[in-house]
């Protein structure tokens, strides 16, 4: 984004995609966000940091994205009493990020909605875990808050509370439905149950070791997080992984996408009442995980991507098995897709269900796979292609309907494209080293790492401390953007369709709650 019309001076920001940073006043923060919005840009992340030890009070950082790349706006709150402007009128997704920034750092936003988001009475509301002088007291027992849900009143309206313990084998979260009969009038989400202090935990790890934690922010996207983290470390250290490592990382990322899409296609079928789909797709997913284990030593590929490169090389024998697997998966998935497409009962559940129009998706900042199903084509692998995607050319997958059927269709198409990419990578993979030694990392350097995970773009903002330590790490999952959209997607649908709609997005709780 060209920030010069705003009178701002930008400096470069270490990142694997084009990125710049600029210091802004509160007025400039607002006008820069407005400008970004007018030019089709989107809010990526908003987080705060305690920088009082540097004599700067509290920093509020706002990461924006547009066709030119990333722009990081840095605003300083000189003291606890200072406020920064509410960005949610421009970017609705800012609402929960602002509330979380207060809960964790105590940076106050000038917004009407001052309800807690990450805070759930496990620590005093006037203590802020990500402040540097924060000390835990053993006297703080888990508590219960009285969260002010918005209620709908009227004849025949009733409320259904679901969670945090759900009926299926899924993550914890709470959903509050206001319904009349079976029809959903309103859904309100309450998340934060999986908050386990990941950002604080990062600050006790070294830059080199942090990749293990990064790989456990959201276990279903371990490769994407580890890639984003490793790139951020490498940007700080001003080095790059060897070409073969970059290719192998991409190979793992695509295999993670394939495995995840196969799992989701099975579960979406199951939630549509078609257990056959779950049996078939879960079998195929298991085949992928077993080969992952054989080739890289871990079924989900945890700890395979490391700062500097990759932990384990791919041998010729396993590469051959992968090629065979691509061929057999293509055949099997094509058969199953026909069965899904021709199954009237299933299509009846999928079509028009949980619809998000392109306009709504734009307005709310929907991102990743779900956005592509609503006609927004963003994909980091295409928009800012780097090794090896620049050499392979990723075919962008989009759909226009924005319903469950569209999200299923995008998953099918992306799975085929990932299978094509894996084959192409296996055919053209360069030889050479799989890791490079990291040079000493300078202190006080901020870098952004990013990767297009299967769910959407994942970002990690990483700031180095002294002697190779982590000063601050803020991971950002696309679920931050997409969770609020589900609240809109279910309006007017019936309650029994909620599991299907929710599964068609399949958002992360852990990656969001941190």
């Amino acid at each position, binding site marked *: 984004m060209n920030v010069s019309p705003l009178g701002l001076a930008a400096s470069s920001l270490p990142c694997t995609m084009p990125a710049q940073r600029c210091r802004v006043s509160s007025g400039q923060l607002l006008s820069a966000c407005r400008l970004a919005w007018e030019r089709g840009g989107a809010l990526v992340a908003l987080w705060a940091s305690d920088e009082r030890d540097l004599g700067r009070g509290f920093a509020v950082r706002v990461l924006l994205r547009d066709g030119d790349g990333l722009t990081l706006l840095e605003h300083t709150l000189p003291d606890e009493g200072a406020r920064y402007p509410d960005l949610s009128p421009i970017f609705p997704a800012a609402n929960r990020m602002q509330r979380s920034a207060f809960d964790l750092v105590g940076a106050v936003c000038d917004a009407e909605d001052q309800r807690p988001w990450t805070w759930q009475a*496990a620590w005093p509301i006037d203590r802020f875990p990500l402040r540097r002088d924060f000390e835990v007291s053993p006297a703080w027992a888990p508590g219960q808050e009285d969260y002010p849900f918005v209620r709908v009143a009227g004849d025949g309206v009733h409320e259904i509370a679901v969670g*945090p313990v759900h*009926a299926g084998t899924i993550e914890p979260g709470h959903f509050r439905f206001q319904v009349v009969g079976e029809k959903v009038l309103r859904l309100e989400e309450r998340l934060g149950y999986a*908050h*386990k202090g990941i950002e604080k935990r990062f600050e006790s790890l070294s830059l080199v070791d942090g990749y293990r934690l990064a790989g456990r922010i959201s276990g279903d996207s371990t490769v994407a997080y580890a890639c984003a983290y490793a790139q951020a470390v490498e940007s700080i250290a001003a080095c790059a992984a060897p070409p073969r490592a970059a290719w192998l990382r991409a190979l793992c990322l695509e295999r993670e996408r394939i495995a995840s899409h196969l799992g989701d296609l099975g579960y979406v079928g199951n939630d549509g009442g078609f257990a056959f789909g779950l049996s078939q797709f879960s079998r195929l997913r298991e085949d992928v995980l077993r080969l992952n284990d054989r080739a890289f030593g871990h079924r989900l590929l945890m700890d395979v991507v490391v700062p500097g490169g990759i932990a384990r090389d791919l041998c010729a024998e396993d590469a051959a098995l992968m090629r065979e697997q691509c061929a057999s998966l293509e055949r099997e998935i094509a058969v199953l897709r026909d069965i899904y497409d021709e199954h009237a009962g299933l299509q009846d559940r999928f079509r028009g269900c949980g619809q998000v129009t392109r306009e709504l998706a734009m307005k709310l900042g929907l991102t990743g796979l779900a956005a592509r199903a609503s006609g927004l084509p963003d994909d980091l692998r295409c928009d800012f292609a780097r090794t090896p995607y620049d050499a392979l050319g990723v075919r962008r997958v989009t759909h226009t309907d924005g319903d469950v059927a569209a999200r299923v269709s995008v998953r099918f198409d992306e799975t085929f494209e990932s299978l094509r990419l894996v084959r192409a990578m296996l055919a053209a993979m360069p030889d050479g080293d799989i890791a490079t030694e990291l040079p000493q990392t300078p202190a006080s350097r901020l870098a952004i790492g990013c990767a297009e995970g299967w769910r959407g773009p994942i970002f990690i903002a990483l700031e180095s401390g002294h002697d190779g330590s982590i000063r601050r790490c803020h991971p950002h999952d696309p679920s931050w953007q997409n969770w609020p959209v589900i609240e809109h997607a279910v309006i007017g649908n019936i309650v029994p369709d909620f599991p299907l709609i929710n599964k068609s997005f399949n958002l*992360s709780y852990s990656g969001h*709650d941190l």
Partner: protein
Amino acid sequence: MLHILHQIAKTGIKSETAPTADEDMVVVARLQKTILRTLGRALTIRHIDAGSCNGCELEIQALTNPYYNLEGIGIRFVASPRHADMLLVTGPVSKHMAIALQRTYDATPEPKLVVAVGDCGCTGGIFGQSYASLGGVASVIPVDVAIPGCPPAPRALLQGILAAISAYAPPVAPAVDRAPVEPTLRPSDGPDAP
């Protein structure tokens, strides 16, 4: 419809033989005889995510795929703790989930088994104990079996689940013996259980 039948026939039976129980995973063995007497050979499990990264959930879900075919050996997941014999708990236990975990445990009828899943469920794992994390599952509810791994592979999960119901059991389980269950089963249990 023909497509579906054809695909089922072509796929064939993929189920593998279940592994044997791994008794090394048993933390406390007290209930097994009672459980077997009460349940015969069927077991129902309620899963609780008490704050995990979702890695363990993916592997627990894999147990129901055709290869591991959990239902084929008489074990199935149920939607409510009130229908469950066993709680399969992943961790670390976030402070935000501690009350929900305790309530779910309380809602599960006796006799009940608790299996802690994954390094985080066993000890808190990489997340440890913090302002937001209480660590392992045993810090909140008594644990019978702990299955390490990050995440444990489905076979390890099966070994742990089977250990919970088969360890110290008589060689031939009396399938239809429905002797009454003693009302108080856990006099010595507490958060400090090993």
